[in-house]
């Protein structure tokens, strides 16, 4: 298991190299001069040239890439073009905010998604199943920015219960400001979780071992919990893991609508201003987070399914075979 984790961590290096290479060259080769974007259409030629030199844009592309990578290996993500503040500190500043939102969003998705998914599967083709499927279809299809605005209009403007935007201070303030963005983010993800849970449960429900369990007289509750759900969890964990990895990189739309100061907004702002170091820094961070969550999901498989755990550890497999034979 330990070896597997180390191997996976080493495999992240080429992934990150590929990411930096692609993003650096795409950002640098797409038309548009960062100096012109920073200074606007009223800047003089001299001012533009001064700015280019200040940003190091007067050097050849490959030299810039080599310098960037050299600094990266020393943990230096460079300075933002726009505000000249170190990229790493800006990304780290914003990460906790994004993490809070991502975790809350996923919690909302799980709290809503898994029970409804289980109920739908167990009561397949009933009114309850059809209703939840329609709602989850609406949930998947509804754009976040629209749902966010509707929630704001209802809970902030009409009812006056919650703040319409921003990240509140203090525990209660934070929780109050978290409800709407987490609901917005969680609803879309919940819809996916409902559908995934339902289909995965339906596959398990028809297995012989479920009939055997029932024949043994185990209660329906125990069957659902221990025999159905546990076996149905692998695809659900995969889907939730992917969603979580994405959310950790910043939920751009939700963060923008609710003025949540997270990574997503930092990234949108830096893309529109062609702030290459800032985009690179955020993308590298996002890639690391994504790879990391994927690794966690893979490790989680082992705990959910002993067969997978045995594959990680060959010694265990041999011993078991020995016993059986």
């Amino acid at each position, binding site marked *: 298991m330990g070896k597997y984790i180390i191997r996976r961590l080493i495999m992240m290096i080429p992934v990150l190299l590929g990411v930096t290479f692609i993003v650096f060259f795409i950002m640098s080769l797409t038309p548009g001069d960062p100096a012109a974007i920073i200074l606007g259409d009223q800047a003089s030629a*001299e001012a533009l040239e001064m700015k280019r030199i200040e940003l190091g844009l007067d050097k050849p592309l490959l030299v810039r890439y080599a310098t960037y990578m050299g600094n990266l290996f020393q943990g230096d993500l460079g300075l933002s073009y726009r505000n000249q503040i170190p990229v790493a500190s800006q990304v780290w500043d914003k990460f906790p905010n994004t993490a809070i939102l991502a975790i809350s969003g996923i919690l909302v998705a799980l709290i809503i998604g898994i029970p409804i998914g289980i109920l739908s599967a167990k009561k397949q083709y009933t009114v309850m199943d059809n209703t939840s499927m329609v709602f989850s279809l609406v949930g998947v299809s509804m754009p976040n920015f629209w749902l966010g605005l509707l929630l704001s209009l209802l809970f902030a403007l009409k009812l006056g219960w919650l703040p319409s935007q921003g990240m509140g201070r203090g525990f209660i303030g934070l929780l109050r400001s978290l409800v709407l963005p987490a609901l917005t983010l969680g609803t879309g993800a919940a819809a996916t979780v409902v559908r995934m849970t339902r289909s995965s449960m339906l596959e398990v429900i028809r297995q012989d071992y479920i009939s055997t369990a029932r024949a043994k007289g185990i209660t329906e509750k125990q069957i659902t919990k221990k025999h159905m759900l546990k076996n149905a969890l692998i695809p659900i964990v995969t889907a939730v893991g992917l969603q979580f990895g994405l959310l950790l990189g910043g939920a751009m739309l939700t963060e923008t609508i609710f003025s949540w100061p997270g990574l997503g907004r930092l990234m949108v702002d830096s893309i529109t201003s062609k702030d290459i170091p800032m985009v690179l820094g955020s993308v590298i961070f996002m890639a690391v987070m994504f790879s990391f969550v994927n690794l966690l999901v893979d490790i989680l498989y082992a705990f959910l399914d002993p067969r997978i755990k045995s594959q990680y550890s060959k010694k265990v497999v041999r011993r078991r075979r020995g016993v059986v034979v």
Partner: protein
Amino acid sequence: MKKILTVLVVLLSSIALFAGGASERDADAGSGGYKDTITIGQGADVTSFDPHIGKETPAVAVTNHIFDTLVDTDPVTGEVVPQIAERWEVVSPVEYRFFIRKGLKFHNGEDLTADDVKFSLDRAIASGSVSYIVDFIKEVKIEDEYTVLVTTKAPYGPTLRNLAVPFAGIVPKDYVTANPDGLKTKPIGSGPYKFVSWAQNDNAKLEAYADYYQGAPETKYLVFKIIPEASQRTIALETGELDISYDILVSDLKRIEENKDLVLLEAPSLTCFYISFNMRKAPFDNQKVRQAINMAIDRQLLVDTVNSGTGAAADEIIAPAVFGYYSTGVWDYNPEKAKQLLKEAGYPDGFECSLWVNNNQSRVEMCQAIQEMLREIGITVKVEVMEFGTFISRSTAGEHDMGYFGWVTSTKDADYTYYSLEHSSQQGAPGNRSFIADPEVDRLVDLGRTSADMDVRLDAYKDLALELKEIANNAPIIYTAITAGTNNAVEGFVLDPIGYHKLEGVKVAK
């Protein structure tokens, strides 16, 4: 399942609990009938608190409360008024002597002297971001502790107005020398408000500077909240989370107007959108063609439809609030006469050409409407949308037929725009993308630029405006509007056409 239901119940009851909780805003309330905090919503964050770097409106909206300049312009009258300099004298056409107010202190307690003024102006000149505002200065000489002599490279009429631009802010020399990056995140100035905190992409908080030379500001704290989504800014204004909201979405204007608890403020900005004809290319080298296009555009219709009634039809490339503006009257919409002019120019059946615009939705929509108007006089226009950097670099190289540009007269002085857009020495990157090179235009621009006599300048700009209307190298289209919404408890808020407003005199009744 029970556990999950319990969690749901807890979650819902928490929402109900929070609903009853006191909001942060109420907790900020001060005594004496007025709140101690004004909360302002704006669409973008401060790029840099360093006045010599952060030149974007959202940055200056905050930093112009922290830093003062040598002189200031009155937001209502547009007149130049004293600030750090209590008075000044024009020694010669190239020399201005400024007498610095004694007893001024920066927020860190250091005295503000001639040394800081020289250091600041030299720093602004060397800045890649804002040098264009102050690069007319040849030298800043310290005459004594409270007197500086600013020498310009050539006689320069708009000297005072340029020095009033917030990018020429005065910063503390000792603090900046000891910590060159300090201003970016912990700014120290001598303005009416002191910096308290900045949470990037969230908010910036300022506190009243009790020792400000004009007296402490009316309200103790200013909190600038960053709310990128415009409709959310309106909602936050309606819920009372904001006292003032900048840049109201056009579709929200009516909602604010109809809400009796809110006040909508609107004024023409200093921004003009215009089409530049590339006079190096046929058929735009023909004056009649340029005049025909000007006549074929129904500007008021564009304001009423594409701009939903905000802004105003433009008659010049400088806005009415700019010093030197002379109204030549908006071009009459007359497609018949336009067709006649095209015929006289040798294009009875019209022609095909392109109109370039950068990828900004409202600009593109404006160009599409103009495209239809020109189709009526036989001109087939292809609207080409491109990324901003490409748009600027290719139009700088003169590859365009027509380009749709926007220009802000940041200094509120006509020279800033006329020199960049109309002078033959400024072709390409500096701004003259119609590539006009007319000796009479150059003479009038130079006269307005070099004279220190305001009457001479105004006369020159009047003649210039009439001359340019005749040449028609550009087609001014619209002046955009500056908008803001406030709740009706806000007192003393003045909308500045430049887009960043001074809030030291503003207070909000509880």
